[in-house]
């Protein structure tokens, strides 16, 4: 087995780690680091008590990542409580999304070992300026960015440029929707807001089916798949948390109501085919009846099975790169009406040309 196949096999059955030839760990560790999955796998190996049987090389790198992830896991609750306290006078309760939500709500299963570079919150659109101002007053400032990117964020997306705490370095992404409104696909956010739960510690997050759908949208309604496999393992582990038929129904209904049932179908299809994720037969068949007969399914399969695999430039071939391009085009196509898409591509690409001509550092605003 090659490195990438091992990553898939070990996600399905972590017990297999004991059988990995020692030399294969070099590529496995390298791929896991690239996918930011070292800590997640480390915890998986511990859960099935195989960690201690691994070679010293593997244990060394897994444990380093585990220590970093543990620190983040503890810090996120501190950061979350800071945000809740700061926003309380505005009568805004932040809804925690993605990585931070996994840590706050699903610590033992998905949060542990899941690392992320920023904390995502959702607040009401009308409150977004006051939230931004209040955070700035307490030391969270925007990062330097080019005027074009600044404009793009404000004009077209579902979030404002990220803010960063001046001393702790924590980055907060503030959203008012889960999808850029410009795409014409932004759901009526109230559909999601009927699926809120509060964690034991009092943090607001989406209930499991809605959290899963958001994770699906984030992965598949997108043009970049740098951490495609990491995000697929998020879905795999989220699906494993579904215990009642009502949760599957809620997922199906929410996806239909918000117009993301194609994405739900694709997510289920590739979780099944890549990670053999167990999904209820009737649930999957219902999706397949609705979406399975697309003419382009073969192209989608070709592309997604590659962008969602554990990838690394040292193992990539031309088909992998073609898949990246197809998915990049598809992602942009989905997200933007054509006139804006052209403008965005033109600006990005003429800038890309200038970067190619002048060197990358020319355009990066100096940090600090």
């Amino acid at each position, binding site marked *: 087995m090659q490195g990438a196949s091992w990553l898939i096999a070990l996600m399905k059955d972590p017990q297999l780690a004991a059988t990995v030839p020692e030399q294969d760990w070099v590529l496995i560790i390298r791929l896991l680091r690239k996918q930011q999955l070292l800590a997640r796998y480390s915890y998986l190996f511990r859960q099935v008590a195989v960690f201690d049987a691994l070679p010293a090389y593997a244990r060394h790198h897994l444990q380093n990542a585990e220590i970093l992830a543990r620190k983040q896991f*503890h*810090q996120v*609750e*501190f950061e979350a409580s800071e945000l809740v306290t700061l926003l309380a006078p505005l009568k805004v309760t932040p809804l925690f999304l993605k990585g931070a939500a996994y840590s706050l709500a699903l610590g033992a299963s998905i949060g542990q070992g899941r690392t992320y570079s920023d904390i995502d919150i959702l607040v009401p659109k009308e409150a977004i300026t006051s939230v931004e101002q209040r955070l700035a007053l307490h030391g969270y400032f925007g990062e330097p960015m080019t005027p074009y990117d600044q404009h793009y964020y404000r004009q077209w997306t579902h979030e404002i440029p990220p803010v960063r705490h001046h001393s*702790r370095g924590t980055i907060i992404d503030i959203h008012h929707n889960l999808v850029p409104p410009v795409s014409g696909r932004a759901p009526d956010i109230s559909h999601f807001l009927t699926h809120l739960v509060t964690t034991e510690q009092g943090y607001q997050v989406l209930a499991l089916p809605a959290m899963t759908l958001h994770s699906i949208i984030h992965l598949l309604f997108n043009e970049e798949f740098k951490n495609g496999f990491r995000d697929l393992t998020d879905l795999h582990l989220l699906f494993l948390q579904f215990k009642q038929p009502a949760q599957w129904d809620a997922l199906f209904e929410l996806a239909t109501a918000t117009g993301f049932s194609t994405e739900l179908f694709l997510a289920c299809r590739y979780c099944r085919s890549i990670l053999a994720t167990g999904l209820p037969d009737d649930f999957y068949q219902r999706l397949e009846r609705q979406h399975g007969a697309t003419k382009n399914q073969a192209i989608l399969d070709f592309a997604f099975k590659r962008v969602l695999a554990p990838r690394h430039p040292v193992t990539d071939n031309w088909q992998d790169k073609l898949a990246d391009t197809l998915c990049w085009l598809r992602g942009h196509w989905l997200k933007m009406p054509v006139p804006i898409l052209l403008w965005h591509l033109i600006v990005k690409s003429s800038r890309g040309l200038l970067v190619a001509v002048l060197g990358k550092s020319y355009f990066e605003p100096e940090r600090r």
Partner: protein
Amino acid sequence: MLHDVLLEHVVVHSFSDGSGTVFFNQVTGETLGVSLTAQQLERLVLNGETDISVQAQDLHALSRMLKLPSQSLEKANV
């Protein structure tokens, strides 16, 4: 005991030469050193004794490691 008033995730150590005490918040990574022994700190924090002279900003820093609002410490020290 000083340990009873530490914030969660804060650990503390007093040095063998009696030169002072250091606090470490494991969540924020913040470290604070004060030139008071564990006994002096206990008298200041638990008993509110006022013969120990401490700067206001040190008290404020201390209040971020201990389960006491900075005002009550300052009051104790005025």
